[in-house]
């Protein structure tokens, strides 16, 4: 029996139905798991995505030929039964279920999976495990060092940090990816602490979320005028690219922080050069990956991006048929793009046996 999804130069491809999933080159028909830029690219002729993602997709890609499908509803494409199921990653993110002649494959896209697949993130539907024969999974944080705290605890940390800064009379600039992470944070915070300002890039996505019916606290554009009194109690949400820019300096004396799964590691935290790191990710942590893979019941698992080699070896050791697809998906954006990840191009290979380091050359330095 032939595979339902294969790797083509354009991206993941379903030969039986003749369509692509999150392709990185322009194609005729693309099924899109979610609106992040490494998964949803411009230039395809037809787009199919989950209904809740329509506003954000259009906000990002402009006018596209988009067909939407409710979570759980099915569509026949060339004899393949296609349905979309919540991935819990960001608003409208979906796993793509493909059923063909009694075989079921699932492409996860990006996902996060809290214990018990509980709904923590108020801005999107929680991950729904889907039984399948083959599961194509991300593995951005596929190392046992990545274990997330419950979201409520991170919310407490952020609120305490913000309130502390406000009491000391300085603004709190929190860098977070402008699509997904920022809105999740908005839904987590205690907006009574002070006014909330958002960078233009973030504010644009906020609008798309609100248009989709997601409740977010009131935000102000951090454009022109920010009153000095307001500034001192403000929380400012901005994309990581704004760090160190003239834009960030307009808030005067401010504390800054970065919210990302990479902040789990002290080294990454220090390289980020902010006062504080909050460990908050929209990707599954190590237990989340194990949980989702186990719940899929799949005997075959294909990893697409992140800690691919580690995950392949780990799953193979548990008797699963594990392999890798060398995709162009980027993992969690915004920082430490390659914090100890596998070597480029080494994605498909099993990790090499431990070889002794080359003989240490001359160095008498103390």
């Amino acid at each position, binding site marked *: 029996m032939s595979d339902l999804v294969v790797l083509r130069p354009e991206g993941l491809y379903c030969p039986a139905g003749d369509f692509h999933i999150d392709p990185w080159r322009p194609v005729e028909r693309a099924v899109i798991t979610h609106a992040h830029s490494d998964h949803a690219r411009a230039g395809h002729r037809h787009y199919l995505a989950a209904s809740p993602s329509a506003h954000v997709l259009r906000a990002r890609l402009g006018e596209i030929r988009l067909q939407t499908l409710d979570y759980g509803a099915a569509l026949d494409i060339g004899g393949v039964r296609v349905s979309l199921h919540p991935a819990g990653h960001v608003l409208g993110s979906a796993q793509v279920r493909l059923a063909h002649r009694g075989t079921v494959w699932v492409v996860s896209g990006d996902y996060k999976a809290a214990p018990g697949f509980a709904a923590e993130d108020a801005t999107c539907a929680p991950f729904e495990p889907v039984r399948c024969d083959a599961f194509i999974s991300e593995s951005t944080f596929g190392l046992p*060092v990545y*274990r997330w705290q419950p979201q409520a605890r991170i919310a407490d940390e952020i609120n305490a940090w913000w309130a502390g800064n406000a009491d000391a009379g300085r603004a709190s600039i929190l860098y977070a990816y402008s699509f997904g992470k920022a809105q999740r944070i908005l839904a987590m915070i205690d907006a009574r602490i002070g006014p909330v300002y958002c960078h233009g890039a973030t504010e644009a996505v906020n609008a798309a979320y609100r248009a989709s019916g997601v409740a977010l606290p009131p935000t102000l554009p951090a454009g022109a005028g920010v009153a000095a009194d307001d500034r001192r109690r403000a929380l400012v949400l901005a994309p990581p690219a704004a760090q160190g820019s003239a834009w960030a300096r307009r808030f005067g004396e401010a504390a800054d922080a970065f919210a990302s799964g990479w902040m789990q*590691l002290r*080294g990454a935290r220090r390289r980020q050069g902010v006062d504080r790191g909050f460990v908050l990710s929209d990707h599954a942590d190590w237990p989340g990956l194990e949980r989702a893979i186990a719940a899929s019941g799949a005997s075959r698992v294909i990893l697409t991006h992140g800690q691919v080699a580690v995950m392949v070896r780990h799953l193979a050791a548990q008797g699963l048929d594990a392999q890798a697809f060398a995709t162009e998906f980027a993992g969690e954006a915004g920082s430490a793009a390659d914090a100890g990840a596998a070597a480029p191009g080494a994605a498909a290979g099993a990790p090499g046996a431990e070889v002794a380091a080359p003989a240490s050359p001359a160095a008498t330095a103390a």
Partner: protein
Amino acid sequence: MRRFARLFAALDASTATHAKLAALKAYLAEAAAADAAWAVYFLAGGTPRRTVPTRVLREAALAASGLPEWLFEECYQAVGDLAETIAHVLPAPAAEDDLGLAGWVEERLLPLRGQPAATVRERLIDHWRVLDWPGRFLLTKLIGGGFRVGVSRLLVIRALAEHAGVDATVVAQRMMGYTDTDALPTAERFARLIAAGTDGPVAAGAPYPFFLAHALADPAALGAVADWQVEWKYDGIRAQLVRRAGQAWIWSRGEELVTERFPEIAAAGARLPDGTVLDGEIVACTDGRRPAPFALLQKRIGRKTLTRRILAEAPAAFIAYDLLETGGSDRRTLPQHARRALLEATLAHAAGPGLLLAPVLDAADWAGCAALRAEARARGVEGLMLKERAGRYGTGRTREAGTWWKWKVDPYSIDCVLIYAQAGHGRRAGLYTDYTFAVWSDDAPERRLVPFAKAYSGLTDDEFRAVDAVIRRTTVEKFGPVRSVTPSLVFELGFEGIQASPRHKSGVAVRFPRMLRLRPDKKVEDADTLARLRELLAAGAPAAA
């Protein structure tokens, strides 16, 4: 323990000095004296002997985490720090306990030393079980001997001084020897650190805080050369020789008591009158007059026990260049020239084997100084020291009392090629920052790149990130933590010394290598050769070796 773990996490997470100072003072205000005694000891750089070997630490972590060894290794490679890796992979704590830092160290950590590996493993797992993340990280750092925190000793002293309302220089004096390995911290010792009063009784052998020099690029701005005392800059171990109460003590700049390491200097110290403190440099000295290359001293430092043979091969001497105390009185406020006169008078009787007087050099003008400096390498010294004749002896890197400048000879430099890279640790964990460099062998046309040095400092964070990206792109092979790369980057590498070394493939060993700059303008083919290294070796071999 929880309090100190929180302090450690705060110090570790923050980059701002005022925030660190505030955290230190908040800790001192609430900690019990016995706990604060240990906290100050660790923060000021005290390192109790390693209680648990890394191997046992790893075994315990593997057992507690249930991870296979290869997966633990992958984690370690991503994190770059063993204690942090362990803290991340342990299962959630079962309970927490309230034992203070002193209790943890004295009742739980120190007793681990010398226990059979199986016992240590069991106890470690028990200890981890009752600690949260910061506590586990701290504990593992402490027992693994890798405890370091981004706080200077000076900042700890400042926090203690502000906490106690005592002058910082007084606390600095009292802190001398506090982190000595042989005397463990106690509530009483801590109480003495912060006792009220301006000059509590200085322990009989205590040295003064060292006055440190600043690097000088060009002496032109220093005014008349006559205002400066010119000396050689020695390449040895900075130290104070203290003679009081019929006894001699030798303190290194790291405030380690090293008297037993240098018995010949201690013996020479016995010739000094009681109540004398000298500042100077410990060097190896084979002919009784001139310093031998540092490598000889290093060979001796590396030995655990001093044999008759090593004492004969690498005899040490103290080259005195300043006098801080005579007749039991503190002379640090006298001007440099007056201290020099006292030093000469004192050494007139006491100089001899193991104790030499540093000569003052004569130079009519700065050109004359530059000419002297040019001789430095041939004389086995690092350059010149310029000391303000009217200056007092300050504390640390202060300048208000008068300045000491070190005007070093330019380091050697060579253009070489990056061939291996290894991930950094600590602040640079996860980035490839430790590099192995190579030069071309001479046998054209089939010349090869021969590794000759490793370096991991000298670039800015941005440059490291850029190089890291190139390394990942050009990786050929991974050997554990090391990557070999397709040679593409040329660096100018600086180093302070060079010597022949048959143990190394290149035939030479270089001292203190560091990256001076990236040379994007140079092609790999343009890098230097082994022949060039040998030229430097021939030119730089100390005449009096």
